[in-house]
């Protein structure tokens, strides 16, 4: 399928999703749906680096935080529309991705992962001590009740924005997968030394992957202050973001764009349902149980079942 046709399909799917949400007509549906969509963006972004090139990034919360806190700063200092804030948050986060990549990509395997984890801790310390964005007390954001020019509630607007970002992220991931760039990423995953020996510009490709992956995570994090209305470092840098974002592609399958979506929908929906019907602590337990189940039964994720 050609890329424009694929994007058309994505838009149709997104329109159906939004139509369904309008049909249900319950604010909670938007709140829950936002989280699932946010995880589609996050896990797709993670998979560009983690799945395609094989570099496991544990620093996800740092990228989300760059997006979220850049929104806090912009909210306090400017009156930019949310879409512009997302673009800025994404750009800053992509820069963090390239910067981290440049400093750490000489490290391979586990060492790279540990470095990204350390990077998240450093970022949390910085944010906690930055008074302008609220420091450890956190920042309050008052969101408008409605979006005048669309005639919808603000939470519906956030849901739509996240739907749009999901389309953007998934379309990008799929386009990469079928391109020279995507095969270049795969050579790094399969055998980095051989990739170098074949003349694949490995450092450049890894920096591109880091930038794209970080950029999308930042974009997913940018609307977060408007969603939660109270943003504090402890919950922004919560380990559950990192755990969920990594678990979803692993459960869905890391080899293709579809895997992170399947994982995010399955795990994200289960967690939302469990949070309402049982308790929010159970939703983390679900991640653990599902991960163990998939590692034993389907180590290549849901996609692995369908491939020979």
């Amino acid at each position, binding site marked *: 399928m050609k890329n424009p046709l694929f994007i058309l399909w994505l838009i149709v799917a997104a329109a159906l999703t939004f139509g369904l949400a309008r049909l249900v007509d319950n604010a909670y549906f938007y709140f829950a749906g936002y989280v699932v969509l946010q995880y589609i963006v996050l896990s797709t972004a993670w998979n560009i680096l983690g799945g395609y090139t094989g570099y496991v990034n544990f620093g996800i919360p740092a990228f989300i935080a760059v997006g979220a806190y850049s929104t806090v700063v912009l909210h306090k200092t400017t009156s930019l529309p949310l879409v512009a804030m997302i673009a800025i948050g994404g750009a800053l986060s992509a820069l963090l991705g390239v910067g981290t990549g440049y400093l750490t990509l000489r490290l391979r395997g586990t060492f790279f992962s540990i470095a990204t984890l350390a990077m998240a801790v450093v970022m949390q310390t910085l944010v906690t001590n930055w008074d302008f964005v609220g420091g450890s007390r956190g920042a309050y954001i008052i969101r408008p009740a409605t979006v005048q020019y669309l005639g919808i509630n603000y939470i519906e607007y956030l849901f739509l924005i996240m739907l749009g970002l999901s389309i953007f992220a998934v379309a990008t991931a799929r386009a990469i997968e079928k391109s*020279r760039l995507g095969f270049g990423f795969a*050579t790094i995953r399969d*055998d980095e*030394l051989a990739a170098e020996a074949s*003349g694949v510009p490995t450092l450049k490709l890894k920096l591109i992957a880091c930038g794209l992956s970080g950029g999308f995570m930042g974009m997913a994090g940018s609307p977060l202050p408007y969603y939660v209305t109270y943003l504090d470092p402890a919950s922004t840098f919560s380990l559950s973001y990192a755990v969920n974002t990594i678990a979803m592609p692993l459960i869905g399958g890391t080899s293709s764009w579809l895997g992170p979506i399947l994982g995010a929908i399955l795990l994200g929906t289960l967690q939302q349902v469990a949070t309402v019907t049982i308790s929010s602590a159970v939703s983390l337990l679900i991640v653990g149980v599902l991960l163990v189940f998939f590692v034993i039964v389907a180590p290549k994720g849901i996609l692995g079942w369908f491939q020979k």
Partner: protein
Amino acid sequence: MAASLRISGLDAGYGAVSVLHGVSLDVREGETVALLGTNGNGKSTLMKCVMGMIRPSAGTIEVEIDGVKTNLVGMTTEEIVNLGIGFVPEGRRLFPRLTVNENLLMGAFRIAARSQIERNLAFCFEVFPRLAERRKQLAGSMSGGEQQMVALARALMSAPKMLLIDEPSVGLAPLLVARTIDSIKTLKDGFQLSVLMAEQNFTQAIRIADRGYVIVHGHIEFEGGSAEELNNNDIIRELYMGA
């Protein structure tokens, strides 16, 4: 136009362990030169130095391609491949989860090679008809001999002027070793390459080599100007026959 290589006074090692001591070696235009030695004598280290994967502590590595001389010390692997030097690493090192076709296309990442993809692919498939049959198969699922064909073809897809081959015979059945060595000769003639081949299998290597060097404990112990000179040599008898 082919390429030539001149290594002189090369010292290299891994951290505190030094492996190569003042190695000097030449590959002239259009030659096949065998670098002979048993395990652990520094053949692979020498190859990796030329490819920029290990930085030598002393000495120079100079190539001349189409009349332009370049010192390779300090260059990255990518830049060295871009100059027109192809490398077949020891143990083949394919991309197992990509197909044969994708493996070959990844060999042509070098910009100068992209315009020649069709022609080079056709030539590789002519030399290795087996690969044409299996172009859609995952490289990791192929036999050792077939994988060696893919590794050679992948290196050639970068349209090199000089080819470095590290132990093409490793892990192959004797019959396949002979075939692989023959195909190196065919490829070399087809692409008008200069070849430096590291090999333990002495008898197979000298079948196609114009000249050869014997490396022992990181020194060049003997330089043979022809296959006969290598054949009638005491060091080789000692190393290979144990006499």
